[in-house]
């Protein structure tokens, strides 16, 4: 999974570099707590010995909702507002807040298996499509 020409990642620091894009977190060398995004100090013990880690590309839905109204700026989107799913996905070492590709709450269930993918978030004034991370059903590209 890579970002194609004419696209960029919403914040490169959230992702690993290389051909197979994954979420980039950090793990504390002193107490093993894992964070996302990667941080410079540990929220659990205060240590500054944080090491970057590649987070798993699949997990299970820990909680979910659907954003039914358009947020104010700094939220950015193209065209007319469309509802989007939001959830926490349990990746094992850490539970990550994320967009969900599913927008029907009737089709979302805590415990469902989901996989990482890149989705369009908005378009820059110069036409560059900006991608962010989301989780959706199935094994997904993240496990390719």
């Amino acid at each position, binding site marked *: 999974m890579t970002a194609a020409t004419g696209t960029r990642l919403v914040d490169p620091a959230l992702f690993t570099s290389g051909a197979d894009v994954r979420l980039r977190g950090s793990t504390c060398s002193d107490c093993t707590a894992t964070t996302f995004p990667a941080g410079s100090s540990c929220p659990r013990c205060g240590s500054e010995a944080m090491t970057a880690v590649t987070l798993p590309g699949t997990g299970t839905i820990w*909680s979910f909702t659907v954003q039914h109204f358009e947020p104010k700026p*700094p939220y950015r989107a193209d065209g007319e507002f469309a509802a989007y799913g939001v959830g926490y996905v349990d990746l094992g070492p850490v*539970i990550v807040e994320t967009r969900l590709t599913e927008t029907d709450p009737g089709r979302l269930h805590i415990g469902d298996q989901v996989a990482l993918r890149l989705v369009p978030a908005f378009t820059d004034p110069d036409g560059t499509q900006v991608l962010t991370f989301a989780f959706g059903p199935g094994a997904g590209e993240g496990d390719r």
Partner: protein
Amino acid sequence: MMRVAIVGIGIHPFGRTEGVSGRAQGAFAARAALADAGLRWQDIQFAFGGSYSAGDADSLVSDLGLTGAPFMNVANGCATGGSALNAARNAILSGQHDLGMVIGFDKHPRGAFNTDPASLGIGDWYGETGLMLTTQFFALKIQRYRELHGISTQALAAVAEKALANGALNENAWRREPHSRQSILDSAMVNYPLTQYMFCSPGEGAVALVLARGDSAHRYPATPVFIEAAVMRTRRYGSFEVFSPCLSPQAAPGPTAEAAAATFEAAGLGPRDIDVAQVQDTESGAEIMHMAETGLCKDGEQEHLVLSGATRIGGAMPVNTDGGCLANGEPIGASGLRQVYENVLQLRGQAGPRQVPGEPKTGFTQVYGSPGVSACTIVTR
């Protein structure tokens, strides 16, 4: 042991008051509290106060009188009122002062709060991709809670139904029209499973309290109400808080559980001793979760308590008797003090049509907010 009494209370009606600034509402509440205590501003030795978006509290001295008294601004998000009350109480307990005021006021623009990610150390991506919303957090938290403890959407609607029924009995409330459970369920979906009428809105309002040494409380006209404990806490690692790009798989109790437990311990009372409670109800699910986090009930018991009417004014455990945030809106600086104001009214027996029967003697409050703060109080008479 020295105690601190609340000897005067004042409020400016909550809601939307066009043409009246947040500061002016604060001054209105301050004058009302002084009148209630039979005092003048010149008698007040010190003050703590705050607002989130309506100006500096200490500028109220320009309206109330330039007496030279120390006035400390408190800026602590949703815990502003609780922190100001705590600081003022400690100023009296320490022996530094005998008589002071706590003021909270606010006036927010319409619509959901719009927080800058950078102010919390989060990257721009979080707001740009639509994750920086308090309403999402509350929906995500109650969805997880419902999965673990079986709370129905009927119970979520019943909380809002009760709040609006209580608000209809409160002349200072914003929302004064009762709504049926069905109309609450049928209102616009905001963040599944929470609908529009299950959420409070940012609003306006002001509350002021006059605090005095407990051994001087008999000098004032109203029945004195004593602050037995006031505790504020921030989040620990592992708790589930608003604006969290990640959570730990090792869950920890939230700041409300810790603040409430410390408050009960300091007061030497338990949840069963409480006659009337005001808890943070940013939305229906928050009231349900906070009932258990504060120890007022066990996880999952809320379903029966709420649907059976136990949390209504005539019930065994009256909760949010003034309509809570759902009926009053949430002016951040004033919200926590509104809860204390309501408990003082209830303990004095002055709550009128919404008076809790049986002459309540103990009141509990809990305020919660971004980025994971909670403040609780216990008052008695």
